[in-house]
């Protein structure tokens, strides 16, 4: 299934876009880890930063094993630096 992942800060600049679309396997459960691996494969220039990133689903951090639904809003969150 195609899913769109929002990108921010260094990820956004490296990708040249504030989101990317990735296509995950059409059947079976899709996990947050699958999404992160797919982003790494599609944008190898981001691969170095991705292991330090967290995936947010519907504005909440999830763990790698958590399942993703087609209607979920996904964002890849690089290490934060507010304050």
């Amino acid at each position: 299934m195609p899913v769109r992942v929002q990108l921010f800060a260094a990820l956004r600049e490296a990708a040249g876009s504030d989101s990317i679309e990735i296509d995950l396997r059409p059947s079976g459960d899709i996990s947050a880890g699958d999404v992160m691996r797919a982003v790494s494969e599609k944008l190898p220039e981001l691969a170095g930063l991705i292991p330090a990133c967290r995936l947010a689903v519907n504005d909440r951090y999830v763990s790698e094993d958590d399942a993703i639904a087609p209607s979920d809003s996904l964002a890849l969150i690089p290490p934060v630096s507010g304050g």
Partner: protein
Amino acid sequence: MSGSPPLIIRLGEEPIELAKLENLLEDPDTGAQAWFLGVTRRKTEVDGVTRVTERLFYEANESMARKQLGRLAEDARIQFELSKVVIVHRLGDVAIGEASVAVGCSSKHRVAAFQALPWIMDQLKSDVAIWKRELYADGTKEWVHPTQ
């Protein structure tokens, strides 16, 4: 409680003016009001090298950051038995010496208000979806993504 609501979260490009925020903590049943201001610093030492910052730029995942800050303020209010919590974070360009973040809280006694501020800032800096980009005096730009 009285006056303003107990939790106030703001995220935006307007400069942070503490004088305009102070009344948000007013509550005749509290005896302590405490504020923390995070201010853009000119010099940063990295690996023994001093870098001079020209200004900072802040970006957020706004919908997520607002929800996170709201939960953070509520968690702090419960944990430290605060009356009011105000969190304001600036976005966009922030000049040297200007505040990028203001956190305020009020409580019956001073200890709770003193203790809540570092806790709120630690949570904000580790989890809230906001990022800063340094613009150094030599013209280079660099996103800050702490990995430790």
